[in-house]
């Protein structure tokens, strides 16, 4: 019995220690004045591999999710004769919940796992150690640009997901099922508020971006320097960041849209 309690205590302490370690890691990566000349070039390279390469999957899934919402929403709303509220349904569910969460999950799978694997391999092949040897800080040179690229990309990808999703809903509702176009947009505009809904949705995307890139980069940096270690770290990145995103989403929704 006492052994079990001791085990629980040990794992709790281990978790807290690891959490603090990752906080210090984040702090040392981002602390200090960046070198604008070399930093910008490194950042642009990372923005390309984290942001631009994720664009295709975001656009395609955004369009299809918007189309499905349009189709399902139409079937249900037409039972009550309120199919004109379709624009409102599609836009609000996308802007508030679906866009940030689905973008974050896709981002964790597409970009987060790639970050972990890349950094893990650098560690396994001792590139990071040799960098330190010649006096280059790997936290500043390797980790920081990747973190910042993730922070910048996620809100942009969220906005793009939203826009393509609304367009998908418009395609199905107006172009295919023949809703009146004016009512579709007018209902949407009267119920979606820019400050309350759109900006909060994008803020959600930004916070998810911080969580995912932080987890991904930390897991890569702390991975066992073996091929098995890299695979474990990549799996952990996807699992941890998906769970974190879903749990954070509940808390953020309660804070932003909850009425209490």
């Amino acid at each position: 019995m006492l052994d079990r309690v001791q085990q629980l205590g040990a794992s709790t302490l281990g978790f807290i220690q690891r959490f603090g370690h990752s906080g210090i890691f984040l702090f040392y990566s981002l602390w200090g004045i960046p070198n604008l000349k070399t930093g910008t070039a490194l950042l642009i390279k990372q923005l390309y591999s984290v942001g631009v390469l994720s664009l295709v999957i975001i656009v395609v899934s955004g369009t299809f999710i918007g189309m499905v919402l349009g189709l399902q929403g139409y079937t249900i709303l037409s039972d009550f004769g309120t199919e004109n509220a379709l624009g409102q349904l599609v836009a609000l569910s996308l802007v508030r919940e679906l866009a940030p969460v689905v973008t974050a999950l896709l981002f964790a799978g597409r970009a987060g796992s790639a970050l972990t694997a890349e950094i893990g391999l650098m560690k396994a092949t001792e590139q990071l150690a040799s960098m330190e040897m010649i006096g280059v800080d790997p936290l500043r040179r390797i980790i920081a640009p990747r973190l910042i690229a993730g922070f910048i990309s996620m809100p942009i990808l969220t906005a793009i997901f939203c826009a393509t999703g609304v367009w998908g809903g418009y395609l199905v509702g107006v172009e295919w099922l023949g809703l009146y176009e004016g009512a579709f947009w007018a209902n949407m505009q009267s119920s979606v508020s820019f400050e309350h809904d759109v900006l909060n949705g994008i803020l959600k995307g930004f916070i998810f971006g911080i969580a995912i890139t932080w987890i991904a980069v930390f897991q890569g940096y702390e991975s066992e320097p073996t091929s098995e270690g890299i695979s474990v770290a990549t799996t952990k990145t996807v699992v941890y960041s998906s769970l974190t995103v879903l749990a954070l989403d509940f808390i953020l929704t309660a804070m932003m849209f909850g009425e209490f």
Partner: protein
Amino acid sequence: MTMKWIETLVGGLMIAGALALSMLAFKVSGIQLSSGDNYYHVTADFENVGSLQARSKVSLSGLVIGEVEKIEYVREDYTARVTLKIKSSYDNLPIDSTAAILTQGMLGDQYIGLSVGAEEESLVDGSVIEGTQSALVLEELIGAFLLSMTKE
């Protein structure tokens, strides 16, 4: 892949993000750029505000002319004081105009409907609307109806 290409594509991502955000702003949320609108405030006391809340619409002949700014409790006479902000372009409302809490459709949101009075003097900032009609509560309505049925 040369650096030039990468930079161009990243620039494209930024432009796509800006375009998406402006579509969300103008097409989806219908944001109004003319935020230079001036408002004046008037108050009205209601016995029952129903489900009226801040940012509910204020309408005159079906047009939206302002919104509810805040609702607070008046301790002395147990009523709710609603502060309305009305666009200053609608500055010729007679001082004896009345305010009623109405419902949009069967299940819609509640809003304030103004009915124009007959006085020469107009509402100005800080005026009080005297004539008010409270929100309709369905249970009270049914109760009154049943009562009148049993009397017959």
